[in-house]
């Protein structure tokens, strides 16, 4: 089995699936090109996450990750929720296959986006402070160094590089700055169209 029992449990019985029509914040990550899309809805009460719902289009790992994140974050303060990293989620799930770490393990990012959306809506001035949050900065550093498919090291120049394991050439996406498959018409991270 490629997935742990915990992943299969969260995939088969995902917690907190759904939408919140009167959400305080909504966050969305991923796109169908790389495979997975997640939308998180949150309600905030006294600076704590009082309700979280999610919808995910994606593989077993993506659904399990989303479910796990909602469980980890529910009832936590926004600060605590912002400290949840994708790596911690994978750990809680008893690990994920290596090739799924970057594509499907986006639950914490989606939650953070929802919190940012809430903060932006409730106090527009708070936006800059959030973008400097350590969890987010850590993630971006990680993704800059690794193949988005297999998480292996990238070889070559900074703007154009390749993964010898996957035999894929990468370029930096002009929209989001992350490495994306050179052969694809759209960025695998943000979905922006890439001019050839």
């Amino acid at each position, binding site marked *: 089995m490629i*997935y742990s029992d915990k992943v*299969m449990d969260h*995939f*088969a019985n*995902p917690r907190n*699936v*759904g*939408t919140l029509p009167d959400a305080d914040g909504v966050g*969305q990550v991923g796109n*169908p*090109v*790389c*495979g*997975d*899309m*997640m*939308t998180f809805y949150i309600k905030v009460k006294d600076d704590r996450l009082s309700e979280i719902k999610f*919808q*995910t*289009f*994606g*593989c*077993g*790992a*993506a*659904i399990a990750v989303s479910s796990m994140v909602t469980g980890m974050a529910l009832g936590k303060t926004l600060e605590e929720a912002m400290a949840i990293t994708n790596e911690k989620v994978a750990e809680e799930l008893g690990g994920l296959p290596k*090739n*799924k770490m970057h*594509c*499907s393990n986006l639950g914490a990012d989606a939650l953070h986006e929802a919190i940012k959306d809430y903060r932006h809506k409730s106090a527009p001035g708070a936006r800059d402070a959030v973008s400097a949050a350590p969890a987010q900065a850590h993630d971006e550093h990680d993704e800059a160094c690794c193949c988005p*498919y*297999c998480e292996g090291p990238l070889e070559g120049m900074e703007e154009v590089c390749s993964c010898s394991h*996957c035999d*894929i050439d990468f370029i930096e996406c002009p929209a989001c700055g992350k490495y994306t498959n050179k052969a694809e018409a*759209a960025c695998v991270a943000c979905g922006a169209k890439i001019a050839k």
Partner: protein
Amino acid sequence: MRRIYLDHIAATPLHPEALAAMLPFLKERFGNPQSLHGEGQSVLEAVEEARGQVARLIGATAAEIIFTSSGSESNNLAVKGLALAGRARGTHLVLSAIEHLSVLNAAKSLEKFGFRSTLVPVDGAGTVRPESVERALAKDTVLVSVMLANSEVGTIEPVAEIAKLCRAKSVLVHTDAVAAAGSLPLDVQALGVDALSLAGDQFYGPKGGAALFIKKGTRLLPQIDGGIQESGRRGGTENVAAIVGLGKAAEIALARRAERAAKAAELRDRLIDGFSRKIGHVLLTGPRAGRLPHQASFCIQFVEGEAMLLSLDMKGIAVSSGSACSSKALKASHVLLALGLDHATAQGSVVFSLLEDTTAEDIDDVIEFFPPIIERLRKMSPLYTAYLKENPQ
């Protein structure tokens, strides 16, 4: 839990008669067929009998059959072996865009040796048009490789027509018949091809037993240099048990192919009809007619293939998918993209392929179990929510 195995294209079970034929060669008949003593010579006889059995399945002569280890090896040997042997005539290859990766990547490897290749596009049903192949031919084209049928979308290709127009221009033709062998009638004379790949694990033979047909008089550069095995065209001590199992499976396939195919086609249509009645936003990939008798493939919108595969597996049903998430490299199947499907649609790929012992009851169970799985996953899907918002029911 009762298991319903509908992943013929990944592997078929070993036929009991093939197993029985193999067993002596894993026990007392261990000799090397190249040895001149009794132990060797009796094994050689078995290998040559298997060669005849495989030849009869495709209307070839025994001398035209080379045993290999897999469909991928057969494809590699055909593409590289024929191209390199024909290098003096040219360095251009023509391949369909939906060939198996063992054909596409073999051609890619040849680029390092000065070859170039043209990929012929397919239409929305996955058909390679002969006129598209003709347009792709260059003065220095040495080899055209078009598969007989595609396992992922089920399309049967007009290989005989393609071979005819290539022959008129003295271009060699290879066809990858791995998905077709055992299911479609095969006759290398009628097809007019110079090379044909097949693998026993697609028709109830063992893994490790495969073959390449090379038409008499066609030059081939070996890819495993060694001794005189396989008339010097493939070195290495013969995998005797697998070869004997392949031969037996070929003999059974020749006798039962028509009956197997007719039964499978009926159940395949039962599945396709059931899905179109019970599931909304479902697309049959490949053509409705002119497809492999045992294969039915779909793209289910707003849900992802691996999630469907895992859900079906939990219900005891084994299938496969060409979605990006279900592949190790997380790339959507090149076949689905070649059909012109967008990434989101290709993500919903699910492929059912039937065995000879698949029953109507199995199919009815799948038709019953699958719709609630799709419904559950769609309830989780932001794409479906967005669709419903834009198209209120």
